[in-house]
């Protein structure tokens, strides 16, 4: 029975190991280790194929808002009982692909984040508060993002994610109700980013919510 090392593993198994790091930083580190790792990780569509195979792998995401100035987030896998992404670093580290100074995590749903940011360049203005008017939904793993259109006028806006059953609908929604009013609106992601006015908040007690579709990871 011979002594063996990592290089004995076949490509499939090695990829199964290396693709457990869904963020590009870790993948870049890994691709520097040796030629074999580099060529494995340089194959086109490598991560997409992995996601297809393990689509139930990445399940829960916590947007940690312990203090607004040091937001953290963590992508956690129930199945593996481990943190896959985020965790140790401030969230800006993972959201540096967004075209804004200081992103502010408002809500999360599976591996998507709802982020708000100030449209103005001044970073002083970017730290929390109701003047943050622009919103986008992004996926820190694939580094995709989509900007949401302006919400209807409201004195005070709050937002979040509503999870819809994956098998029932693939559209997402975001609701921005007026402060202490019954007016609210839903953003339908599925049908071309438009707002629908609703007569009253859809869920009593939760006067603001929003959502995405699934933990879609398309590039």
């Amino acid at each position, binding site marked *: 029975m011979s002594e063996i090392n*990592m290089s*004995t593993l076949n490509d499939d*198994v090695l990829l199964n190991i290396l693709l457990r790091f869904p963020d590009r930083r870790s993948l870049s*580190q890994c691709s520097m280790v*040796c030629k074999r790792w580099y060529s494995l990780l340089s194959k086109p569509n490598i991560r997409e194929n992995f996601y297809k195979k393990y689509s139930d792998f990445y399940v829960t995401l916590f947007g940690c808002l312990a203090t607004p100035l040091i937001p953290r987030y963590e992508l956690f896998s129930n199945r593996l009982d481990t943190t896959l992404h985020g965790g140790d670093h401030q969230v800006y580290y993972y959201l540096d692909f967004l075209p804004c100074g200081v992103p502010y995590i408002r809500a999360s749903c599976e591996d998507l984040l709802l982020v708000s940011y100030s449209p103005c360049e001044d970073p002083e203005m970017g730290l929390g508060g109701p003047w943050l008017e622009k919103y986008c939904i992004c996926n820190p793993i694939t580094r995709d993002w989509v900007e949401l259109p302006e919400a209807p006028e409201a004195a005070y806006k709050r937002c979040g994610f509503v999870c819809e059953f994956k098998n029932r609908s693939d559209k997402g929604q975001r609701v921005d109700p007026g402060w202490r009013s019954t007016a609210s609106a839903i953003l339908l992601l599925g049908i071309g980013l438009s707002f629908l006015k609703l007569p009253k908040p859809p869920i009593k007690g939760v006067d603001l919510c929003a959502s995405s579709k699934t933990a879609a990871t398309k590039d």
Partner: protein
Amino acid sequence: MSSSSTTTTTTRLLMLKASDGVTFEVEEAVATKLGAINNMVEEEGSEDLICLPNVNGKFLGMVLEWCKKHANNNTNSDKGNDEVNKWWDKEFVMDLDQNTLYHLLMAADYLSGTELVDLLTEKVASMIRGKKVEEIRETFKIKSDFLPGQEEEIRKKNSWAFE
């Protein structure tokens, strides 16, 4: 996780023979946790003796130990069993040295034990997670085989990852 023979009440026993001649007598329900063996068993007129020339007895024993645990806990579908399995899995991989880990991985992969492969690859991944390039090389005794300048070039291309 498709169990093929939940309705049959008689338990069929299979003999698994490892590369070094060591044999294991296991219940069919246990052995078929491994996709490769499940396929062989489903073939009509299959024999009860299965030779596995690519797996050493020591590691086949460990793989079967894992199968037994998971097959047993699957029969009664208590919610608590999930937790028990997780805890057991953690213990199973906790103190494995690298050599054993790779042997087990190759055995599990060869026998198509998908869940076990996932468990073991995650264990290896946990040894990589959070490490810098040099630390990864040291941990796994990997020598950089990039040509001089090549590494620098790739590093430059991905400079944002090394800040």
